[in-house]
């Protein structure tokens, strides 16, 4: 199955995949939590620190010029990666969580008042729930939740009913971090826009697995985390349409985000800098750009194809394991397989998989409301990236068979 996609040579770029865990070759299937880094990304970090590490913007010296250019070039790489209209629409943050908090605060300040509503869905990650709860508490607003069916699919009819005149923003995930379901974001946005409601898309689980075009989607806000797309920790992206960024007040105050500071009156820098208070993680942004270049060179289309095959193969093989119970019956999954082994606690499964060298995640996956809705306490999540292989799937299958026997 790996004919067109040379996964063996791709894996060579990821030194960690050669690790062993408890004597077994590591099988890393916790990619939805964080992804591994190609050598070139780490090399970029080293190179940046040792050849042009200097604080960016406003300095006259060479190192700072070079650092600034690398940092701003990274913005252009991100812009092109998601096809934003201009680099000014890319705000660098600390991660998806901070991106969403930024919007919850600044959009909230600009556009929301008592009695208004924010709409989210039942399948959101805590990072796309709690910031809105905090906003709603602060402003005495109401958080409304689009329900899902027993398989985890969004109930589109209910969604349309909830799109009332009080809704100020819809915040929804592109791909569920538990189920791997892709929401029909384009249609969802179309419907929201018909009612004049802007949409924030949480793309944390999407960008590593498929081409994303924020203009084709017509998303008003789109967020993702560098560490989930083969880039470094500590960096995130907020895409927002220029008009929103211009109308929204700043989030944090400090260096970089100002134009003039006086004790009587302070004026702010132009976008995107208005939203980037303090020294940015300019090494991290350059390394993120390198990660995006790396996967673009492989091709997001090819990655999506390969992962689809791999996940389908995994579903087929895992369904042969006695006691294997898939969460949610949906036609297509993006790189994520959530399951339980009948009668065995997910924690026990995860622990024993670990002892067999296989890293998965267990628990509620930062999506407690979704777990409640699906009436499960916890589940095992195997999540894939393009460097995973069918023989790793075979290892997982064999391990699950073994574990099932240990308990039965």
């Amino acid at each position, binding site marked *: 199955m790996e004919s067109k996609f040379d996964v063996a040579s791709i894996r060579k770029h990821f030194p960690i995949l050669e690790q062993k865990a*408890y004597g077994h070759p590591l099988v890393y299937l916790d990619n939805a939590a964080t992804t591994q880094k190609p050598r070139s990304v780490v090399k970029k970090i080293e190179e940046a620190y040792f050849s042009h590490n200097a604080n960016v913007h406003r300095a006259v010296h060479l190192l700072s010029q070079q650092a600034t250019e690398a940092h701003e070039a990274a913005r252009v790489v991100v812009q092109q990666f998601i096809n934003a209209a201009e680099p000014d629409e890319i705000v660098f943050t600390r991660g998806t969580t901070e991106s969403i908090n930024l919007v919850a605060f600044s959009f909230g300040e600009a556009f929301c008042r008592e009695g208004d509503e924010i709409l989210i869905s039942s399948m959101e990650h805590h990072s796309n729930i709690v910031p809105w709860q905090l906003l709603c508490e602060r402003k005495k607003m109401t958080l409304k939740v689009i329900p899902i069916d027993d398989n985890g699919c969004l109930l589109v009819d209910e969604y349309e009913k909830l799109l009332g005149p009080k809704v100020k923003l819809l915040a929804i995930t592109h791909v569920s971090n538990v189920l791997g379901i892709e929401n029909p974001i384009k249609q969802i946005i179309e419907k929201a826009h018909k009612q004049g409601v802007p949409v924030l898309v949480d793309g944390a689980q999407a960008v590593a697995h498929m081409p994303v075009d924020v203009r084709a989607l017509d998303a008003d806000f789109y967020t993702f985390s560098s560490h989930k797309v083969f880039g470094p920790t500590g960096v995130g992206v907020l895409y927002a349409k220029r008009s929103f960024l211009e109308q929204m007040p700043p989030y944090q105050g400090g260096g970089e985000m100002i134009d003039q500071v006086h004790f009587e009156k302070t004026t702010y820098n132009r976008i995107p800098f208005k939203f980037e208070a303090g020294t940015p993680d300019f090494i991290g942004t350059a390394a993120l750009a390198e990660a995006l270049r790396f996967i673009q060179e492989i091709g997001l289309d090819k990655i999506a194809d390969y992962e689809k095959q791999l996940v389908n193969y995994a579903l087929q093989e895992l369904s042969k394991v006695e006691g294997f119970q898939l969460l949610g019956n949906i036609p297509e999954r993006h790189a994520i397989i959530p399951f339980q082994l009948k009668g*065995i*606690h*997910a*924690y*026990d499964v*995860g*622990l*024993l998989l670990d*002892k*067999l060298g296989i890293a998965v995640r*267990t*628990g509620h996956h930062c999506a407690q409301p979704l777990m409640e809705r699906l009436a499960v*306490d*916890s589940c095992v999540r195997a999540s894939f990236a393009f460097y995973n292989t069918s023989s790793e799937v075979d290892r997982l299958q064999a391990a699950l068979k*073994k574990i099932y026997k*240990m*308990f039965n």
Partner: protein
Amino acid sequence: MSIDEVQDDIIQAFDEIEDWMDKYQLLIDMGNSLGPLDEQYKKPQYLIEGCQSRVWIHAEYKEGKVFFEAESDTVIVKGLVYLLLKVLSGRTPDEILKTDLYFIERIGLKEHLSPTRSNGFAAMLKQIRNYALAFKLS
């Protein structure tokens, strides 16, 4: 048997097993053999909430000794609980408080004591000591 004799017995039982999975098999079997906790104790006040699993523990003080009963929703943690109770249940508060639980490390399960582990086992151990201290001072 003294506490350390029980510990040494456990160490020996695990030492005889070479393969990791077989050790865990033993732990699972022990977990499965742990009787269910009386429903009256499966209440929030007896609960230790780990992030990944839950443990309920109840202690009774009789004739100078502390008797524990416990349960968990995961079998592996139940196995750990089984071992712990085997060593510590029915001991005096002083014995419990001054015991060095070396067996956990020696059988290779030290990782479960790490505060970054989230299975509630480390918290349970602390709770056992708290009970012992409370009974001692009572």
